[in-house]
Each structure stands twice: as C-alpha cells, then as structure tokens.
C-alpha cells in the first residue's frame, strides 16, 4: 500500500503547517493586549469547549447496551453489573462512574450521538486521531478543523485557547494557531531582562515560518497574560482534567473573548484491566464536567456554552483475557449544554452485526457532528471548514 509522505503519526507530532509570517508581522503587542482587555465577549455569543479523550475510550462501557445478551457474553470479564449502571432507557445505561452526566441527561442537557466514526475506521490511534482533529480522511491535510476556523477570523491571540503547553493539532491553522494556557496560570518573565523580552516577539517579513511562529507565541503570551492573568488568581485543585476545566470556567465567567477551548484527558487505551482504569478516568471526567457546569451556571454564560466530548475510537466488542479491549471503531460523542436538545441521536450500532474485525458499524459520520457545532455554535458553514461536506447534525 501507498505510504503518504506525511503519515498520520506525523500529523499529530507535526502541527507545523502554520505559515503565518505575513499576517502576524502586522501585529503589535500593544494592539493585541488592548484588544483583549477592551473587547470582552459580547453577551450571548456561543462558546465551544472541546474535550479530547486520548487513547480510545470504550464507548460500550460508557453508554452500555446492558440488556443485550451479546454485551454480557462477549465481555464476560468486563461487563458492568447492575450496581455499576445507571439505566436511562429500557436498553441503555450510563456507566455509574458518570453520575453528573447522567443527571444532566435527565435534565435534557446531554445529546448522545451514537455510533460515531467515519468510513473504514482506522484502528491506529494516530491515524484516527489525526482524522478526527483534521476533520479530513486525507493524510495530506495538515491543518486542524478549529485551526481552519481560526484562519477565517481576524487574528486575535484569544480566539481559541488550549489548556496545556503543547499545541493540539486540531487548533493549528494555515495562518493562525490557538494560544495555550497552563493550569498553573500565566507567568510573565520577571527581572531586568524582562523589559527587553517583548522585543523578541516582533516578527519581520524575512522570518522563516518557525521563527515567525515562535515570535508570535511570545507576543501572544503577553496578550494572554494581560487578559487572563488578573482572572487566574487562585490555583485550581482536584484531578488534572478538573483543573483544566476550572481554568476554562473561570475564564469564560471572566468574559474573555474566546470562542473555542480545548482540554484533554489521556490514558484511555485500556488493553488490560479496563474496568478499574476506565471507571477511574470517567469518574475524573464526570466530576470535572459536573463542577464545570455548576461554575458556568453561576455566571452569565450558562446558556452560551456547549461542550463536546470525543475520542479517536471506541474499542473491540469482545474483551480479551487480560480484562481489556483492543482498538475498535465507532463510539458515542457527548454534547452537553443548557442550549442542547438532550436525547439520543443516530442509531446504536447492533452488537449482532459487526465488521470483519469484530468491531461496531458506523452509524453517524463525525463530520456531521462537527457540522452542527460549526453552524450552531461558531456560526460558520460546515463546507467552509470541511470542503465538500454539506450535511450537519444539529443538537442545539
């Protein structure tokens, strides 16, 4: 088979398309910083929070078809028992590790899109995550879907923010990238050298792309510090994902002009001892989502925020002897928010009709989910971000 010059692993490591020297050359530190502090996000502006689950979260042990005899027989060593389940229909139950999401579902604030993936799903973490983050089945596309959205906006360091230090590929565009914020807050350089450091952030038309990108990140650090620093006065606590989402809720409630946020949780690659590991990670996620929704509800943006939770794939229907599952295909995507029309979307892939590898069928294309979010939250036609894609699934 053909190997592409930029295989999918490269895409995830790379995030290096951004050739934005000319645009960023026009920006000055002063203009960015004043724009950030003087332009709080307008009331009622929709906000998207993306939660990436790395490793391949097992959808079948998250939203569980607990009455299906195949679920019990194929997963005899990892099937959740009735005490580990929170049923919400006659055939489906939440993993009891996610009580907050279950409660939000009961309030019609959670859309569960079932069977989500894309045609001929890849069982590679890196290929599949690259497809999800680029929103393209072609390995030639090196920009992320939010990165392409950023490219359509006037540049502002605060348009999109990721929590962490390394840029996630979904937030890298051709001309613009998201800013990153650490859970430890924004700390500007100090001491005598500090007065000269902003000069290092000036770009010039003779800069090569990586140099321009680095200079821009320095300037953007000052812009984010000015806008966000005063809001991040206390250190978040709890699990890492809880801390990430606490930073996001604090900044959303502080009216920073950011439309897209990204947080992530790793280690869901449960080839062995799945129940303990996944339940613990799901409980961390659920606790963080619960605290986030509570925090948002206390502010003025509670109707503006939509959260999407996804992973690169689900897992094999049949468990292995190590109490784990190997790489699979489709899985549910959660969309959560006060403005979401809660309920089930798409069809639950039947356990009785699997593909040649023993994996679930795909019933919903993830690009339709993105389409609904692009059009409903970000106000951008899906075809502008995903070329030649015209359909979308609205849950708002």
């Amino acid at each position, binding site marked *: 088979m053909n190997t592409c010059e930029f295989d999918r692993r490269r895409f995830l490591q790379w995030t*290096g398309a951004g050739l934005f020297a000319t645009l960023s050359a026009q920006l000055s530190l002063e203009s960015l910083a004043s724009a950030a502090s003087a332009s709080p996000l307008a009331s009622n502006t929709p906000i998207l929070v993306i939660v990436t689950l790395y490793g391949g979260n097992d959808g079948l042990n998250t939203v569980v078809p607990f009455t299906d005899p195949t679920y019990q027989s194929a997963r005899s060593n990892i099937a959740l028992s009735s005490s580990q389940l929170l049923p919400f229909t006659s055939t489906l139950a939440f993993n009891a590790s996610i009580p907050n999401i279950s409660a939000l579902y009961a309030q019609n604030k959670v859309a569960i899109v079932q069977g989500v993936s894309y045609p001929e799903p890849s069982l590679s973490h890196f290929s599949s995550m690259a497809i999800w983050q680029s929103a393209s089945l072609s390995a030639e596309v090196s920009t992320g879907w939010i990165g392409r959205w950023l490219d359509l906006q006037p540049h502002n360091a605060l348009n999109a923010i990721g929590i962490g230090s390394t840029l996630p590929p979904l937030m890298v565009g051709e001309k613009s990238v998201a800013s990153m914020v*650490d859970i430890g807050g924004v700390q500007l350089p100090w001491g005598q050298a500090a007065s000269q*450091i902003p000069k290092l952030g000036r770009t010039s038309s003779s800069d090569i792309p990586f140099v321009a990108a680095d200079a821009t990140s320095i300037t953007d*650090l000052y812009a984010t510090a000015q806008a966000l620093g005063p809001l991040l006065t206390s250190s978040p606590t709890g699990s890492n994902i809880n801390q990430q989402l606490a930073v996001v809720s604090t900044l959303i409630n502080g009216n920073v002009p950011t439309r897209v946020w990204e947080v992530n949780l790793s280690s869901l690659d449960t080839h062995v001892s799945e129940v303990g590991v996944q339940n613990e990670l799901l409980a961390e996620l659920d606790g963080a989502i619960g605290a986030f929704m509570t925090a948002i509800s206390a502010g003025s943006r509670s109707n503006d925020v939509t959260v999407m939770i996804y992973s690169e794939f689900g897992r094999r229907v049949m468990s292995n*002897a190590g109490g784990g599952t190997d790489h699979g295909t489709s899985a549910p995507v959660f969309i959560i928010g006060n403005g979401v029309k809660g309920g089930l979307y798409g069809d639950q892939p039947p356990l009785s009709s699997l593909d040649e590898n023993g994996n679930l069928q795909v019933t919903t294309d993830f690009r339709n989910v993105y389409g609904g979010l692009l059009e409903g939250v970000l106000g951008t036609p899906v075809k502008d971000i995903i070329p030649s894609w015209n359909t979308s699934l609205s849950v708002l």
Partner: protein
Amino acid sequence: MPRYITWVRAHISTAQRVATSRLVHRFNFGPRPGQYLEMLQRGVEATQTSVLEHGVADPGLNSLPTPSLPNLGPIPAPNASNVSTFWNTLYANQSELVLWWLDRMALADYPLTERMTWFWHGHWATSNSKVFYPLTMQRQNNTLRRYALANFGDMARAMVVDGALNYWLDNEDNYLSSPNENLARELMELMTIGVNNFTQRDVTAAARALTGYSTYQPTGAVTFDAQQHYSKPLTILDKTARYDAQSLASLLVSTDFNAKFITDRMWFRFVSGTTKPPPALEGSFARRDIYALVDSLARSSAWNDPANSLVKSPVEWFIGACRATKVRPSTLTANALQWCLEQMGQVPFNPPNVGGWPYGQAWLSGVAFQYRFEVTELLMTKADLSPISVPKSKMVQACADWLGVPEWSRRTANALDGVSDNPSDFVTLALLSPEYAVSV
C-alpha cells in the same frame, strides 16, 4: 582575538553558517564555546566528519558513573511498613536516572551516541508513567544506547523482548487463548514498517507470535515459556512460518517498508517535516546499518536547503544551552528543572504516548516560552558567560558565534543591545530568542 576569528567573519558565507549550525545542533546537541567558529574555519565537510565521531572512549563522560539502581522488588501493599521507603526510593531513582541522562547529553565530548539514543527513545517511546521502575527503564536505555548506531535488525530483535516495552504495551497480558494486540500493532505501525503497510489480520497473527513472554516488572527481565507460546504456523505479511518475537522482528525489518519507514523517520526528526528525503538515502540503509544511514544523512546536501528548519524540542534546547554555558544539568535545582521540563511536556523516560514526542510548532506556545524563561533563570545560577567578555560593540556577534546561531534578526540584536550592561540578561535573551529556539 585569535586571527582566525577575523578570517572566519570575513570569509564565511551565511549558507555555511546555516549548514554548520544545523549539523552541530541536530547531531551534537549544539556547540561548546569556540566550537562553532572552529567548525566554520575548517569547512562543512570537516564538520560533517566531526559531528559523526563516536565509538571511541569519551573523556567527557569519565566523571559520570552509571547509576547503580537497586532492584526494588514488588510494589508493597498500601499499608505495609516499607511502603513510603519504597516510593521514596523509586522516585529518587527516577530523578537520578533522568539527571544522569541529561548529564551525559551535556557532557559528552562525542555526543552523537547520546543524540541517537535520544532519537531512539522517542522512536520506541516507552514511559515511566506505566513501567514505574527506573531499573527497568535504565535497562531499555542501555539497549537503545548499545544499538544506537549499530544494526537496526539487532536493535529490533533486542527491543521486542525488552521488559519495559513489553510491560508498557501489555504483552504481559497477551495470552495464547486470547491475544492482546497492543505490542503487535505498535511494533508494526510505529517501530518497524509504518501505518497502512499491514492488515488487521497481520496484527492478530503477530500478537500470537508474541505470546509466551513475561516480564518481571521490577527489573525488566523477560522470560520465555514455550508452553504459553503459539507454536503453529502463522501468516504475517503473506509469509507463513512458525514465529517467535525475534523472528517476527526479523521479518518486519527485512521488508522494503522498513527501509522507507526508518529513513523517513530519521529525515523527519533530523532534517525536516516539510521536505522529502532523496530516494537514494533509503539505499544507504539497505543493510539496516544505522550508522550508514546517519552518515549519509549528515553528508547529504539537505543542510543547504533553506526549507529544512526544525524546532528544537525542550530537551534539545536545554542541552544546547548547557553545553554552551558549561552547565552540568544535575547541578541545577533538580525539582525546579524537572518541573519546568514536565510543564514543557518533555521529561526523558516519560513521553506522552507510544507515538513519541510532539514535533515542530507544537512546541512553540506561550506556555513553553514561560518555562524556557524559568529554565534560563536556573541556568544563569551556574552559567559560564566568559565567551561574551568582549567589548560591548562586539558582544552581539560574539554571542552568535558562541551559541552557533547563523545570524541574529534585527529584533533580537536590538533586544540584546538593550541589555549589554548585564551579561546574564544578555545571555538570557539570546537563549530565549526565536533564532535559538529554532534550528533555522
């Protein structure tokens, strides 16, 4: 000032400065004081030969004994009396191992072996986060160093029965009755032949070939039990045979996919993510001789192509700064250093996932800059700044020649001029400049 410095400045082209900077940064973690100017004077060919030197006794490492880590045995029960001693020792050993490796990178007189070991660590990416035991990680690190410039087939056959890798990728739970695919898939996809060059059937069969091996987690010792091994013929990549771990590795390494895959990976990490390796480069890996490939790469014309810039990863940036300022990493405040590396996303022995380290622009965030600044603050407590003890008017150029920067932008030269009264601030700004963060 030695006369040759004047000569170098008068006669050396920007192109040669770029090529020389690339060679010394990418294969040797960056120049020591004076080394860049010497290389410029001797020419690109001599520089290529010089960065490729390896395999001889390295006096730079004489003062650096290999840590003798204890076998800590099984993890004690949470209420056992020795539980806190166990974890304290384990974390101390982890830290010792990280600092020892950083020291090796910074102190080696012939850094190519450490540079290649670092590359292979990212390639066979295994993390302490799951393996836990530093002794087990050290064993893998020794294997990677032993084969770093040797035969890739030998490396693959050693790594496929490496305890840390086996534990990390769950081969511990790969049973005859029910294969676990984790090691089989990643061995093919990420370590030997590349994605899309095998089918799910190949994964299932390869997983069977890997049954029967078990790892003692505290030491990384791997034992083979023929009774637990799938001994019937298997068909993998259309070749039917009875396979074990080593013959599976040999099969994968023998494919044409392997030559292309490893050549591409080397190009991607040492040269560029935006240009392609010349087809001839793959030929130099025909015998799976890693050194032959590295030699061809270093002697290729890639260094003259302006497109072949790379972003230094946090460790590469830090080690370059240590080599220039003669700082031994383990003399810095260890907790602060490791905290900064962790926040930047790159602690040795702890890659984020089996795919290895991020690349390129991913490292260029404001947050990363924030921690690069904190690292320079640590460095300045120990740094030898004598290379810029020159008249003020010559400091900017002397600093470029010292750090191996082809040329400063006006932005950086301007910022440096603003702090020429204070050598420590001057060097802080130079190390934080975009021209030093990037191997241009």
